[in-house]
């Protein structure tokens, strides 16, 4: 078990998730100005892209060509996917609760996390090792677009209810558990 945790770089992942979760909580009421953006953005919204990129670490296969021959690969992948999703959501949950408490749109933030997670898992099956580009690139794009009048990204993701986002998250997670990361070296 310990070998699996080390091989999948769980200690590093947990450390990154803890740091990012604390950062999200610590900056929950802070707003920052960003180039190319008209309005200040909540600093906490910068955390989910980095968090999703960190959560992908244990989902990579260290030896892609060997993976199909490993007996417990499928079980390890299921456990890694579920574990990453749970600790990722858990790291952001206190911030979402705070945002909800002050009457802001917490569902939009949760939906953005679900979107980043889902698209990243799909990317992992398509581009393998380069999948980290997707949460970071898409996250920055969403942040830059969000900083325009009308907050178009929040509005767009809020058109779908949170239960639908949860369903999308579970579906894409299941899809990834079934397929696994792309089996080629990049």
């Amino acid at each position: 078990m310990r070998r699996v945790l080390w091989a999948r770089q769980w200690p590093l992942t947990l450390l990154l998730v803890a740091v990012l979760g604390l950062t999200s909580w610590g900056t929950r009421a802070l707003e920052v100005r960003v180039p190319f953006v008209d309005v200040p953005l909540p600093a906490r919204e910068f955390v989910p892209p980095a968090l999703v990129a960190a959560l992908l670490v244990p989902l990579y296969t260290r030896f892609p060509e060997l993976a199909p021959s490993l007996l417990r690969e499928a079980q390890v992948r299921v456990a890694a996917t579920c574990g990453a999703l749970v600790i990722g959501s858990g790291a952001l949950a206190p911030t979402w609760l705070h945002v909800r408490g002050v009457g802001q749109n917490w569902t939009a933030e949760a939906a953005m996390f679900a979107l980043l997670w889902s698209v990243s898992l799909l990317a992992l099956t398509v581009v393998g090792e380069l999948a980290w580009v997707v949460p970071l690139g898409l996250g920055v794009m969403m942040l830059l677009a969000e900083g325009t009048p009308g907050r178009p990204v929040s509005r767009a993701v809020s058109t779908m209810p949170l239960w639908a986002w949860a369903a999308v998250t579970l579906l894409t997670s299941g899809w990834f558990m079934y397929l696994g990361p792309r089996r080629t070296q990049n």
Partner: protein
Amino acid sequence: MTAARVWMRSGSARRLLPFLVGMALALLLLRKGWNHEWGWALDQAAGTSSLLSPVTAGLIAHDRARAAEPSLASLAQTTPRGRPGLIGVLLGSLVWSMIALVLVAAVALVAAWRGGAVWPPTNWIALAEAIALLFAGAGVGFAIGAWTRNRAAGPLAFATMFVLQMFGGSLGVPEAFRAGGSVGTLLGLERTVSVSSSLIALHLCVGLLMLACGDAAGARGITPLWRHVGVWTSAALLLLSGAVAHRQSQLHDPLRATPADTCVPGPVTVCGPRAARPLLAQAGKDLAAAQARLGKDLDWVTDYELNRSNRPERAGGVLTLNPELMRDGHLSVDDIAATLTTPRPCAGYFAAAPPVDLMAAQSRVMEWVQQGLAGSTPTHATSDIKSAYASLTGCPVVKSDS
């Protein structure tokens, strides 16, 4: 030529080109109001480098780190170009990122052409700025990839470039690590060419220095003299260009206001920068329609000018125009109301103390205008509204020498 083809094929950015173009296009098209004028369109396209340069840095760092793996590094020694060929890794992904940028710029130009932009296209320097920023990102990625040599290189380079974009401006050059994305040429704002040029030089020097450092970091054993020369020369160039950019940003604002040199005649005459002509024409029509709808109870001013604060001594109204708030090609109600209730550049607006009386009068008239434009049948102006409007049109105007 064969080597160039191999480099182009081996760059990770090639596989992610659809993603890069899609993200940059989404970023461009989610913003409104820029598609009436070439300068602003190109500026918004260049602004997508805020996304493309961190991604480029990350991808190049990823490629460079992979090339440092023992098997590939040994293989590189046996190739005709040896280790210097690794720089080709950088060139491949950089070229793909540039292609993504050019595609986005092409879409922006087509949108501006369809939006009625007045020929000829301007502000090409914004594209040069964006390309220089991509080069800086490529250099940063190359250096980080050479130093870290593991899978963390990509995300680390991405984060580094993103943080540089956010906070690089506090290093002494306000616009450092930024390109485009902030100019409203329709509103009479243009980027200062001298500041742009110095920023381009600065970003190229950052890229060069990082490239030289990355190359030196990748050397095994004793670093050859020419690598030391490369690092120190590019460091000196960076210092020089940084000093020039700092001085330029002190001497000039990054943006300068362009004169209101074009007027579109009509029931309501609207003046502004030449590039804004299509929008001025629409503004004139919308203002005339609003005045007709509100009736003749008030003696409406029929001459408005964008960017009035440059020449406050001229009589006539101040046009408020936010292209981002336009819907279906029409001015927003708020902009129309703000314009109609600023019929004269009163001296009070430019005074040190807030013009309380003026603002109260403006607020009364604005409320009436907004109700009139929103309701099915506009109400007649009361004597209170008429006197408030009269105070706005009769206020003293700022003197030209003030």
